[in-house]
């Protein structure tokens, strides 16, 4: 578009008038400036990604747009008209709807009841259930999923992706003109992401502005037309996807480029003897698993959601043990029948779901760090504030080792950032003297800087002779960290790839591409 055209367009204001605009928005919370003088425009029919590290102000901005927060200064313009929201409902009625990462659905109610909660069609307080179900069905038809989702289905019976579609149907029922999505793809499989993408494109074609937050740059580049980068509450810039490369965006986010992202891989002389050997092992989720894990290496486990990645980690750790086959630990045959056995045998498991499985959010850092060592102690043994009988100064040492940033080890873990929480989890396993570490999505939902420091830490572990099994759905992480890669598909190990394999090589295996004759395997799997 030339300058001249631009000016011409500006005159015919209707066509390029932004649907939603924020002007010099600032928001402070006690002790932090969450947003500092941010101005942005969102056009109709545009998919706009907002990226940035944790704490960059993305969520705050979204919440201001959705009426959940009130900005300290600045104004919001909807179709050029100034609006103020004091409650999310007001924003909703004006056509701005937000879908949070944690869904706002009632699991034990039907789809229709969820969509129309608070707005049930009724007479004298009595609900017209038939009309409500019909209206819900119409909405589902509008987004083309009426065959997948019935209005009378219980939400708890739906998959995560289907629940997200229900949220979108709900948003449309408010005549949403602006749809905000917080990490919409975080929990979706490849096929589901594609479904969502198709839907979003359709919404966009109807003139809706779609804004989404994401940590995953791959998707940002798949989805979005424009990318806005925030850093420390300030606007770094808005760019067109076609004009930039992922490295540029990362650079905008952190002020450094993608190459510095990962520590160097291990060298052949770093790898020692086999510490974990699984042979022909199966359970109800897994078929015929065989692999070896050596001292000092990072063995990456790639695979799509549902391929059995997490189940494999859980089997090794005794959560859902192998029922057949054999496991050899440091040369000795061993049955790991529960997590306690695994911990006693110095296996550490940094789980995928940090909030529900990794930390005790309301306990102080010190108790979280000492959880595993205390678990294998005598039940009625004395408790030491900073450690155990043998090593009384464990907590400060661990804290230094993993570099937890806090003013006191008495702080409750819930108040730490995601990255710092992950470090506490790491410390917990270091305390138990684990020398086999399993990481399941070690950096999910963590900002870029903390990611790098966790990657460094994982590499440091291997330098001490620790063996690491690392599961990740992020291919750059798999490629950047792994000394070898196992790719899982459909509950078994599809194949092994050497370090520095390319994304297409891994993707081909992970989508079961070898089983399909056409070379277009990725899209074929996507159509399932």
């Amino acid at each position, binding site marked *: 578009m030339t300058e001249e055209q631009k000016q011409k367009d500006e005159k015919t204001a209707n066509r390029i008038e932004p649907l939603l605009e924020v002007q010099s928005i600032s928001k402070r919370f006690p002790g932090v400036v969450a947003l500092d003088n941010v101005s942005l425009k969102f056009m109709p029919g545009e998919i706009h990604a907002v990226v940035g590290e944790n704490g960059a102000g993305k969520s705050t901005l979204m919440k201001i747009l959705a009426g959940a927060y009130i900005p300290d200064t600045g104004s919001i313009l909807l179709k050029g008209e100034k609006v103020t929201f004091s409650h999310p409902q007001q924003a909703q009625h004006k056509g701005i709807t937000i879908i949070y990462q944690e869904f706002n659905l009632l699991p034990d109610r039907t789809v229709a009841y969820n969509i129309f*909660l608070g707005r049930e069609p009724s007479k004298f307080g009595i609900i017209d259930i038939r009309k409500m179900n019909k209206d819900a069905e119409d909405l589902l038809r509008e987004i083309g999923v009426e065959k997948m989702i019935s209005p009378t289905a219980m939400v708890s019976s739906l998959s995560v992706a289907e629940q997200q579609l229900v949220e979108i149907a709900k948003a449309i029922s408010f005549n949403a003109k602006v749809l905000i999505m917080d990490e919409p793809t975080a929990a979706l499989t490849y096929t589901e992401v594609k479904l969502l993408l198709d839907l979003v494109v359709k919404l966009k074609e109807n003139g809706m502005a779609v804004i989404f937050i994401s940590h995953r740059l791959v998707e940002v580049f798949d989805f979005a037309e424009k990318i806005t980068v925030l850093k420390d509450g300030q606007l770094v810039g808005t760019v067109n996807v076609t004009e930039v490369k992922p490295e540029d965006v990362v650079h905008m986010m952190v002020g450094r480029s993608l190459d510095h992202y990962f520590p160097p891989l291990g060298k052949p002389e770093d790898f020692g003897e086999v510490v974990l050997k699984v042979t022909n092992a199966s359970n109800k989720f897994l078929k015929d698993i065989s692999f070896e894990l050596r001292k000092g290496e990072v063995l990456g486990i790639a695979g799509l959601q549902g391929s059995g990645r997490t189940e494999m980690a859980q089997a090794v750790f005794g959560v859902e043990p192998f029922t057949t086959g054999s496991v050899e630990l440091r040369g000795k045959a061993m049955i790991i029948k529960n997590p306690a056995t695994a911990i006693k045998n110095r296996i550490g498991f940094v789980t995928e779901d940090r909030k529900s499985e990794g930390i005790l959010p309301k306990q102080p850092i010190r108790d979280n760090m000492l959880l595993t060592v205390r678990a294998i102690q005598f039940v009625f043994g004395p408790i030491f504030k900073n450690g155990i009988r043998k090593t009384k100064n464990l907590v400060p040492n661990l804290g230094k080792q993993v570099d937890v940033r806090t003013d006191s080890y008495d702080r409750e873990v819930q108040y730490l950032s995601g990255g710092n929480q992950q470090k506490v989890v790491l410390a917990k396993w270091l305390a138990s003297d684990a020398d086999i570490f399993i990481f399941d999505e070690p950096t999910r939902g963590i900002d870029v800087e903390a990611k790098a420091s966790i990657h460094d830490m994982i590499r440091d572990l291997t330098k001490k002779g620790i063996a690491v099994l690392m599961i990740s759905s992020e291919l750059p992480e798999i490629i950047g960290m792994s000394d070898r890669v196992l790719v899982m598909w459909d509950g078994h190990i599809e194949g092994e790839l050497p370090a520095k394999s390319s994304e297409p090589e891994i993707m081909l295996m992970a989508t079961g591409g070898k089983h399909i004759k056409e070379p277009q395997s990725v899209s074929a799997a996507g159509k399932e």
Partner: protein
Amino acid sequence: MTTTSISENRFKRFMRHVNIPPVYYFLVVIFLGGGILDQIFSDGQIFTNQAILLNIIVRSVALGIVAVGQTLVIVGASIDLSVAYTISITAVMSSYIMQGKTENVPLAILVVFGIGILIGLINGLIITKLRINSFIATLGTSLIIKGIINATFSNYTGSVPKSFQFFGYSTLGPIPVAIIVLILVVFAGWFLLNRTKFGAHLYGVGGNVEVGRLSGLRTDRVVIGAHILCSMSAVLTGLFLVSRLQSGAPWVGPDGLYDLESIATSVVGGTALAGGKGGVWGTLAGVLIFGVLDTVFNQLGMNPYLKTVLRGAIIVLAVASYTYRSKKEAA
């Protein structure tokens, strides 16, 4: 042919619509099991004597009415421990005001429902505005009511007129009035939960307050409303009890264990203590299970302490079966 298939379809749809809570199968099993034990070890009256069947239900009326109210509150993720003393205060106040005179009945009913609404309102306000956990809040109001009753009345007080005993003893045709009242109350509870906005909002608030708030529900009002209805159901139970006992005594509520048993029957009936799930038909089954058990135990002449032990065991078993099933579904 076509008509049968249509009616079959309708029947199926109806069944799906009604969605019989699984607890009814449990009720049938207990009834049949109890009846068979009765045949073997006693005079076998459970299967042969209709009066016993009716009696099971009449005995369930008092608990049934208040349990419906309790279910509403639990669906809203709250709880009401004050129902037992609300029943007591209803019983003593109504018989005190009536003093055996029919002309005092309307006033008595008005006053006790007024008290009930006030108790429910206070419970609801404490829980929503002061943000006090419902368990503690209603335990507190329960103790306050207890203190007030004990300071004022110490024994049977006043009496109800013959006319008022209609509620407790008379029949409409072959069916006792009390049973009709219970059915009406259960039906009202079902209608409220499943057909009205209030019900839908109560499920919303109970399922997830934040979801409710973001959907624009006035969550506090919904919870307060549920508490008022619950206290009113306790008042109705109190009136039923006093009409049968002919005079109100301060211990009728707590002695009947209406607080804990109304919660237990709701939960046995499939209402989740965490809220957002369940309904009054399940609660009715829970109440009937308790009634059947009592009758069976009486027929068998069982030791009263053993009775209590078995009751406890059956509550645990019933609820454990839910968790087991939902775990299986999840897997």
